[in-house]
């Protein structure tokens, strides 16, 4: 999982005020990597939603709990080729995720809440949860489509 070259690792606390700090750093990082603007916004949204879920669900709103976010440039096999991608791994030491609840809900039902996982899945190319060494690990991957096409015509 920790292959590829590390771009940035952040050790955070489970405070809602942390979110804007991460969004700003990540927005800039994604732009630097060559993601087009709309994809930068998508990556930022996914990470914000995932951190929001960690704060609200894994830590049940408790602040000052540790969260680790690491960002790596990796290559993934797609369509018979190796494509560059951004890998983001979020780790917390909160309650074990109830996999049943992770399926999300029907959007037709107009009510507040229940949109976060949907946003994450729509924004990223790959989303995986796992429990490991007493930690929840969320791994998300976003392919660098556009940049690839631009650089290797």
């Amino acid at each position, binding site marked *: 999982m920790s292959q590829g070259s590390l771009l940035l690792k952040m050790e955070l606390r489970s405070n*809602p*005020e942390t*979110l*804007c700090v991460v*969004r700003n750093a990540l927005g800039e990082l994604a732009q630097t990597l060559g993601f087009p603007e*709309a994809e930068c*916004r998508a990556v*930022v*949204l996914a990470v*914000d*939603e995932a951190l*929001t879920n960690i*704060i*609200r669900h894994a830590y049940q709103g408790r602040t000052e709990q540790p969260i680790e976010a690491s960002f790596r440039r990796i290559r993934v096999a797609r369509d018979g080729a190796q494509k560059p991608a951004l890998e983001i791994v979020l780790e917390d030491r909160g309650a074990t995720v109830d996999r049943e609840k992770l399926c999300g809900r029907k*959007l*037709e039902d*107009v*009510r*507040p*809440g229940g*949109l*976060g996982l*949907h*946003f994450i899945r*729509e*924004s990223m190319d790959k989303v995986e949860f796992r429990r490991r060494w007493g930690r929840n690990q969320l791994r998300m991957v976003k392919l660098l489509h556009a940049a690839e096409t631009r650089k290797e015509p």
Partner: protein
Amino acid sequence: MLQIAARHLEKITVFDVSGDIDLASSPELRKALLRELRELRMPRVVLNLKDVHYIDSSGVASLVEGLKASRDVGSRLVLFGLNSAVREVLQLSKLVKIFEITDSEEQAVAP
């Protein structure tokens, strides 16, 4: 940091919102909306989102709560000034259609 400034027209409250609407700030938006709709029973509440450059699902949830409150009390909640970031997120939530969204403030406060 979210800022919410209220302007009062006759039977309409316009909230000029600026900043990011996320887990840290959405409770503030929710409170402002529910107060105006449920407590003060304002017939129309208009949200100027021109200076909102980010909204996430917790922000959308606050808007949905405002919408529900407006329906309960028979008021209107109108949004205008959505930039691409906000529009994209509402589109992703499949909720663009249920909100009353106008292009300008003029239309939002029109009789």
